[in-house]
């Protein structure tokens, strides 16, 4: 495509028609157009002009890709394009800036920022565009911001007064037509003297008015400056806006970072932004600090400090109005990103996004979540339980389990144990590993009728008669014959431990020793005897922990001692 024969005009014409197709941010097209610009470097002036013209006249939603192209050409091809662009960069940029939506503005600011840096991976340390030009743009942006703030503050003072007074207070020479207010999306009805559905970037015909204002008086365009666009009257919105802005910047940085992960600069910057956001989200900053944060944000965006404040000399911008509070506004259009809640932390407070950048931000405010979901901790194994009635019950049975295991550990040394077979697929899918302690420690004597859902395949026909075996004085000698040799795994529903599986010489069968079958369930005969004894004695209701004569006192003490310790821990977290 390097046809040096073509005249600059022809090339420019070709280029113009290609530009028409640049409807969205397509990496492919942009790099393609960049390559063309590079190959036709002899026609650089014409191409640069074509791009500038295109940026100026294309619809607002196509301005960003066009500017990206400018950016790409400037960075990848460099001179002479940079020189040509530089001449009118201010107006090209500001013109576009004034016409696009706030989200796009953030992208533009981001781009502007990169223009102050050297081209990544290039040997030259000069910025993409000379600092004179970029500073000029910066200054204009800052002026706009400051003035917009003043405007806003005045507006707040006169809020609820008649709109005319409000208009008069503005420094703008031409009184802004009502359509100029729509950016105050959050504006409640009293001030909403413009159609509130305006903010869609379409028909945003600020055009000539804004253009003529540039350089002389920025107020016109500044009112649409994104930072202010949703900043309304309360400090709360300031935080919100700030967060929005920062998120915007983060988004852009992330994108850039993804494109160029080796760029230290972007990395550093991103980190700073993420940290900043984390701070904002975790803490409710007093106004003064907030202003500092704002300052920091500006720094991180590499916008030079604001020029001397405009004549009126208002207090530092972004100070919330006296009396304004940080309490959330009634129905904010954007849900507040403040995870600091009065109530309990839960997963809804989690502000982590599933992306690499978001995962890098320290979130100390979320850490308590790890422990507070289940605050009640077992002191002997650190297992956690809910801080509720059910949780307490669960913990009590858990402590029972500890006690039993402890007892059985001592016994089992004598008996010898074996590794059990693993579950088959079907059993595994159906198994409910409720862990060590089942919720129903006390067996219901009536469970015979409703216990058919047991997965153990012991057919009752082949088992020894449970009635006769239960007459056996020593539960240890009771056994249940196993019909299906592959189903050798059975768990006692009381203690949740495996029944001992062995060869029984007398009956010449495989049996579960110390076992008793009740309905389809097989219990440890000793557990069952103990449980039924307890049930009979205490007349326990279903689901209650059976009192364990030997351990009752001990468990009680353990449970109590668990309380204060947990409390102490929680204090540490906060």
């Amino acid at each position, binding site marked *: 495509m390097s046809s040096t024969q073509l005249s600059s005009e022809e090339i420019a014409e070709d280029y113009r028609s290609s530009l028409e197709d640049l409807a969205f941010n397509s990496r492919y097209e942009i790099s393609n157009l960049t390559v063309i610009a590079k190959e036709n470097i002899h026609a650089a002036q014409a191409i640069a002009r074509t791009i500038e013209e295109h940026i100026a006249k294309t619809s607002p939603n196509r301005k960003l890709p066009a500017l990206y192209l400018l950016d790409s050409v400037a960075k990848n091809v460099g001179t002479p394009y940079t020189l040509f662009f530089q001449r009118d960069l201010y107006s090209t940029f500001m013109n576009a800036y004034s016409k696009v939506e706030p989200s796009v503005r953030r992208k533009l600011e981001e781009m502007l920022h990169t223009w102050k840096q050297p081209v990544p991976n290039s040997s030259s340390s000069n910025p993409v565009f000379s600092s004179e030009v970029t500073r000029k743009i910066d200054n204009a942006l800052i002026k706009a911001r400051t003035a917009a703030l003043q405007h806003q503050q005045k507006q707040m003072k006169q809020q609820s007064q008649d709109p005319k007074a409000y208009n008069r207070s503005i420094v703008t020479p031409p009184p802004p037509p009502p359509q100029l207010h729509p950016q105050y999306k959050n504006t409640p009805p009293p001030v909403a003297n413009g159609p509130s559905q305006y903010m869609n970037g379409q028909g945003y015909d600020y055009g000539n008015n804004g253009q003529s204002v540039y350089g002389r008086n920025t107020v016109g365009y500044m009112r649409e400056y994104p930072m202010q666009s949703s900043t309304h009257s309360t400090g709360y919105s300031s935080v919100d806006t700030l967060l929005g802005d920062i998120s915007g910047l983060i988004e852009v940085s992330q994108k850039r970072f993804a494109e160029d992960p080796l760029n230290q600069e972007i990395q550093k910057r991103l980190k700073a932004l993420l940290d900043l956001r984390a701070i904002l989200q975790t803490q409710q900053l007093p106004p003064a600090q907030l202003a500092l944060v704002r300052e920091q944000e500006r720094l991180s965006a590499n916008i030079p400090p604001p020029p001397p404040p405009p004549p009126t000399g208002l207090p530092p911008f972004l100070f919330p109005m006296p009396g304004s509070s940080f309490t959330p506004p009634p129905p904010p259009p954007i849900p507040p990103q403040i995870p600091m809640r009065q109530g309990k932390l839960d*997963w809804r407070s989690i502000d982590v996004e599933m992306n690499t950048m978001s995962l890098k931000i320290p*979130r100390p405010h*979320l850490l308590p979540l790890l*422990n507070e*979901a289940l605050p009640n901790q077992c002191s002997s194994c650190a297992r956690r339980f809910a801080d509720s009635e059910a949780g307490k019950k669960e913990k009590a049975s858990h402590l029972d389990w500890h006690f039993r*295991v402890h007892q059985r550990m001592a016994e089992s040394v004598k008996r010898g*144990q074996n590794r059990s077979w693993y579950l088959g697929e079907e059993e595994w899918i159906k198994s409910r590993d409720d862990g060590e302690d089942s919720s129903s420690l006390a067996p219901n004597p009536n469970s015979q009728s409703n216990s058919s859902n047991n997965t153990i395949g012991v057919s009752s026909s082949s088992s020894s008669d449970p009635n006769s075996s239960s007459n056996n004085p020593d539960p240890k000698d009771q056994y249940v014959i196993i019909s299906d040799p592959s189903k050798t795994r059975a768990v006692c529903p009381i203690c949740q431990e495996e029944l001992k599986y062995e060869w029984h010489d007398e009956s010449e069968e495989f049996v579960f020793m110390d076992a008793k079958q009740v309905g389809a369930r097989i219990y440890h005969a000793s557990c069952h005897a103990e449980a039924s004894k307890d049930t009979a004695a205490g007349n326990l209701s279903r689901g209650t922990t059976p009192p364990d004569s030997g351990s009752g006192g001990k468990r009680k003490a353990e449970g109590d001692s668990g309380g204060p310790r947990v409390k102490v821990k929680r204090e540490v977290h906060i």
Partner: protein
Amino acid sequence: MSVPGLQLSELPIGQPFSNFTTQDSTPVEPLAEKTYEIAKFREWRFEVAFGATVEVKLLKGSAEIFGTELPIGHKFTFTGTKSAIFTWHGCTLEVRGSPSVEYTSEETPMTAYTNLHFALEKQRGLSSESPTVQGPRVMIIGPENAGKTSLVKILTAYAVRQGQKPAVVNLDPKEGVLSLPGTLSATSFSTIMDVEEGFGSSPTSGPSPVPVKLPLVYYYGLETPEGNAKLYKALVSRMAVAVSSRLSEDDQNRSSGIIIDTPGTISQTPAGYDLLHHAISEFSVTTLVVLGSERLYSDMLRRFEDRPNHQHQPPPISIIKLSKSGGCVDRDDTFLRASRERSIREYFFGEPKKRTLSPYTMTVGFDDLNIWRVGEASTLNASLLPIGHDDDEEDGGGGGGQALLVQAECSMLFQHSVAAVLHAEVGDEVHVLAESSVMGFVYIASVDEQKRYMKILAPMPGRLPPKPLVVSSFPEPTFSLVG
């Protein structure tokens, strides 16, 4: 990671560190007792050689090992391990014994790891509110020794700590989870992990001080997934079905989702990428975490980033890049081998001093056995093909490729190997056998070709269930099991 397998290193014993307060330093004693103050957000990393033991007790504060909290005052005994104790709030540890390596580090990737957990927790929360929303399915990939298994442990422990019930899937045959090396497994975790043992223990007939976990185990029998890609894929698919069924049966499992560990080798070759892709789609992975490899990350981005655009059926995958922990240490073959041997020993004999198991030796005639071998690409295969076996066996390959399983004749070659006992029936077709889950393992202690019988070690007494057995080359034969 807590992968056992470290030899005694030459490092000085009980070397004090600047940020430790050494209260009782008597390094001459075999079990020197020291107290360490670990500042918050720091990690005390330690390695214990095989044969040595180190006891650690949390005196005050809070501390966790790969996400699992340590209770105050409980003595943990470590041997043949390398591990790390992290503290969010600072803690005091009492350490008895001499770790071969020990130091505290203030640089840990815990922030990112914890945030990953929180991001998953958010998805679990959303899933718990709507029965149609699936819980997160996260897969960890990365090169070997990048800390994948440690991250899996941390994510699992944190989930359990918040009352979740995630399914942990191990696709790395090199290290077993709750089972032997050479296996793939899936386990639903709802109880605390055994920090001394890594993940914990599978059930035994006796009590266990730390609740046992119930794994669903499949035998693959080779060290790398590429060894028999066909079998590996078949097992992954089968397991994905089982795990999905489990998730659909149990609502808590559903919303808690799946955490998947993968082998390091899978992320390094085109063949591996293919297997990875297969596993990702079989398990409907929603989040892919790339640990410690920029290149792998960008490869994955390229592979999966644009997916939702041209095909709307698979949900988009979030691809996350996390850095490797500075605490990751390479484990050489000797270490890994020792740890494999240990896990075989522990399967049959239990953990010393903690849970002694009694396996049973029995004699089985060749004719009572139905033995299969995992199809390998190697030439060894030919020599192991059945000679004059009378069953009308199918080679299982089904067409040109590598066989899934090959029926085998009992031979001396099996001596000292471990054989998997399948949850299947003799006479099942080869593809059924290949995808069957494992009931357990037997160890082939000796083979007498003349008298046509072998001595085996079975985990429990009684007749060996009349099930098909599978032998393979991994884990390698162990000689020291039965003395």
